[in-house]
C-alpha cells in the first residue's frame, strides 16, 4: 500500500515534529510512505477568505504531487476536508481519485488500517479538543448537535495508549476560534473563543491539550503561552507515536 504523506504548509514550516510522528506511525503500521517533495498548501487560506479563484495554482500543484499513490494521508482534518470539498482540475479523473482517497490520519488508522492495538505510552492527563472540520466535516466523531450514536475515532486510538488519562471539556465539541484567517480578521472573538476552551481544559487540570488538527493547537498554544500557563499542546500523532514510559 503506497501512501502519499501530505504535510500541510504550516506544519512543514513550524511543526515538523507532528509530521515526523505521522510518518513514523504510518511506517510502523506497514505502509510504504512517500513524501512528494514539491507539495505546498491545500489552498484553504485563500478559499475560506473568499478567494477560491486564487487557489487554482495550489490545486494544480497538489494534483501534480499526489497523483499515482493509493492513499493520501495528512495530520490535519481541516486541510483534508478542503481538498475533499474543493479540489478542482481540468483532469477530473485525477481530482476525483484524490478526493476519494485522501484521509485524515486518525480516520486512516481506524477505517483503512483498522488498527486495534498500539504499543505507545503517554503517562499524562490529556484534554481532547475536538476540531470542527474533522468532526463536522469528516465525521471523525459523533456531534453533540445531532441525535446519533456516540463514537470517536481519535478517542478510540487514544484509548490504546498506555498510561494516558483522557478528559473532555464541559462543552465537548465547541470551536476553539482559530478559523483560518478568522483568527486575525475577527481577532477579539477568536481569542475569546480560545480562552474559553482553555478554561474548560484547565478546570480538568490537564497537562496537555491534544487534537487531530495542528491549526487549533497552534492557536491554543499561542494563548496558553501568553497566559504563562504550564499546559502544553500536542498533536494526536505525537501521542500515538510516543513511548514515554
Amino acid at each position, binding site marked *: 500500500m503506497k501512501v502519499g504523506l501530505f*504535510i500541510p*504548509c504550516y*506544519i*512543514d*514550516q*513550524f*511543526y*515538523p515534529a507532528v*509530521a*515526523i510522528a505521522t510518518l513514523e506511525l504510518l511506517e510502523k503500521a506497514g505502509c510504504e510512505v512517500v*513524501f512528494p*517533495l514539491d507539495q*505546498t*498548501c491545500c*489552498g484553504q*487560506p*485563500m478559499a*475560506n*477568505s*473568499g*478567494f*477560491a*479563484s*486564487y487557489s*487554482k*495554482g*495550489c490545486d*494544480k*500543484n497538489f494534483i501534480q504531487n499526489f497523483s499515482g499513490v493509493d492513499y493520501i494521508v495528512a495530520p490535519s482534518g481541516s486541510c483534508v476536508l478542503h481538498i475533499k470539498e474543493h479540489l478542482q482540475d481540468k483532469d477530473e479523473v485525477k481530482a476525483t481519485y484524490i478526493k476519494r482517497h485522501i484521509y485524515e490520519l486518525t480516520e486512516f488508522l481506524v477505517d483503512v488500517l483498522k488498527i486495534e492495538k498500539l504499543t505507545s505510552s503517554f503517562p499524562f492527563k490529556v484534554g481532547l479538543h475536538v476540531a*470542527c*472540520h474533522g468532526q*463536522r*466535516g469528516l465525521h471523525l466523531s459523533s456531534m*453533540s*448537535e*445531532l*441525535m446519533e450514536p456516540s463514537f470517536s475515532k481519535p478517542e478510540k486510538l487514544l484509548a490504546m495508549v498506555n498510561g494516558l488519562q483522557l478528559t473532555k471539556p464541559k*462543552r465537548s465539541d465547541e*470551536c476553539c*476560534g482559530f*478559523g*483560518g484567517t*478568522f*483568527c*486575525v*480578521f*475577527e*481577532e*477579539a*472573538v*477568536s481569542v*475569546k*473563543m480560545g480562552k*474559553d476552551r482553555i478554561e474548560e481544559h484547565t478546570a480538568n487540570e490537564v497537562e496537555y491539550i491534544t487534537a487531530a488538527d495542528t491549526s487549533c493547537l*497552534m492557536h491554543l*498554544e*499561542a*494563548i496558553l*503561552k*501568553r497566559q504563562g500557563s504550564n499546559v502544553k499542546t500536542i498533536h494526536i500523532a505525537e501521542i500515538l507515536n510516543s513511548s514515554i514510559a
Partner: protein
Amino acid sequence: MKIIPHAKAAAAFIKDEPRTDWHDETLWFVREKRDKAAHGVAEWELLREWASQIKNHTLSNIDNYLIEFEQKAVANGITVHWAANGEEHNHIIFDIIRRNGIKKIVKSKSMLTEECHLNEFLQENGIEIVDTDLGERIVQFRKEAPSHIVLPAIHLKKQDVSETFHQHLGTEKGNNDPQYLTEAARQHLRSKFIESELAITGVNFAIAETGGFVVCTNEGNADMGAHSAAIHIACMGFEKIIPQAEHLAVFLRLLARSATGQPITTYSSHFQKPRKGQQMHMVIVDNGRTKQLGRADFRNSLKCIRCAACFNTCPVYRRSGGHSYHTAVSGPIGSILNPNLDMKANADLPFASSLCGSCSNVCPVKIDIHEQLWKWRQLITAEGYVSTGKKIGMKGMAFVLARPALYRFSGRMARWFMRVVPFLFKSKKLNPWYRQREMPQPPKQSFRDWYKNNNKLK
C-alpha cells in the same frame, strides 16, 4: 447611518468580559435545553429531514401554493395584500390604519416588520405602535433593535430592565425582582391591549390548503391583541407558506424544541377567518425573497422557520451579541440572508464565522448555513466588496503557494526572521495575531529539510 463592521462591534462587546461570559452562558443554557428536548424525540433526525423536504418542495412550487393560499384565504373572508418590498408593506398597513381612522396599535413579534422598519415608519406618521412581546417592549423603550429573533432582549440583565422600567413605567428604582418587573409590564401591556383598535401579528405558518395561518407565542400576546382589536393585520414573508395542515405536525414539533427546548410554544394559535364584525388582513411580502429564490446556492435559506437555534449554538454570536450584526435578523442565518438584501452593507457578515458548522447541525430544516457562508464569501469578494489590502495579500499568498521553490524559500526566510529579529513580529498594532497570542517557535529545519537530511529518500 454608518455601519460598524462586525469585527469591530464584537471587539467592543467583548471588552466587558464578565458580561460576555454571562451572555455566552445564558445562550449556551438554551442550546443545552434544545439538546435535551431533541434527545426526547426518537425520530428527531427524521423530523428534520421531513421538514427540509417539505420546505424544499414548497419552495419549488411556491407560486402555486401562494395562489392557492390567497384563494382559500379570500374565501374565508381574509383580505390578502401583496407587497413587493418593505416600503409597500408599510404603506399597505398605513393605508388600512388611515382608512379606519386608527391611532393606537399593538403588535406582537414579527421579524418581518423589523426587516421592513414598520415601527419607525408608523411613528414618523404619528401612529402609536406598541410591541407587546415583553422582550420587544423592553428594547422598544430603550430605542434599541432586538438582539435575537426569539429572545429580543437577551443582551440585557434584569438590572438593565429594572432601570428601563423605572424610567418608562415608574417602577421602583433598583428593584430587580423579576416577578415585580413582569407584573409592571403586564399591567402596562393590559392597558395597551384594551386601548388598541388594531393588532398586527407575524405569521409562523400559512397553510395553502386551508387559507388559515398559525402564530406561535409563549406570552399569548398575539392572541390578546388579535382578539381585542377590531382589525387584525398579519404580516408574512412569502416563504412561510406550507402546503397542508398536517405538515404542522412536523414543524410545530421542531420549532419550540429547537428554539427554547420546550415541547411546544405555550400558544400555537390558528387563525382561520375574521370573527363577526372584525377585519382580517394578510400582507404577503417579497422584499428580496424572489431574488434569493433565484440564487441556486442560497435559495434553501428560505426554508428558515426563525427558531434561532443557530444563534444559540453559534460560538461567535454568543460572544459578540446580536447588535454586532447590524441587521434585523442577526446570527448565522442573518449572515446568509442579509447579503441578499444589500451585499455591500452586509459584506462583513459571512466572515463573522469560524465555519465550525454547528449552525447547520442544529438547524431543524437542514439549511447548510456554514456552506452558504463560504459561498457568500466567494460572491462578495468577486463583487469587489473587500479591502484592497486583503486582496493583494491573498494574491501574494496564492502566488507563493503555487510555486514550490518560492514557498520553501519564503518559509525559510520567515522562520529565519522570526528567530533572528522576533521583535519585527511583535507589534500589537500591526500584527493582530500577537495582540493576545504569542508567535509560534520557528524551528531551524522544516519537515522537508529533515526528511531529506535523514536519508528518507530511498
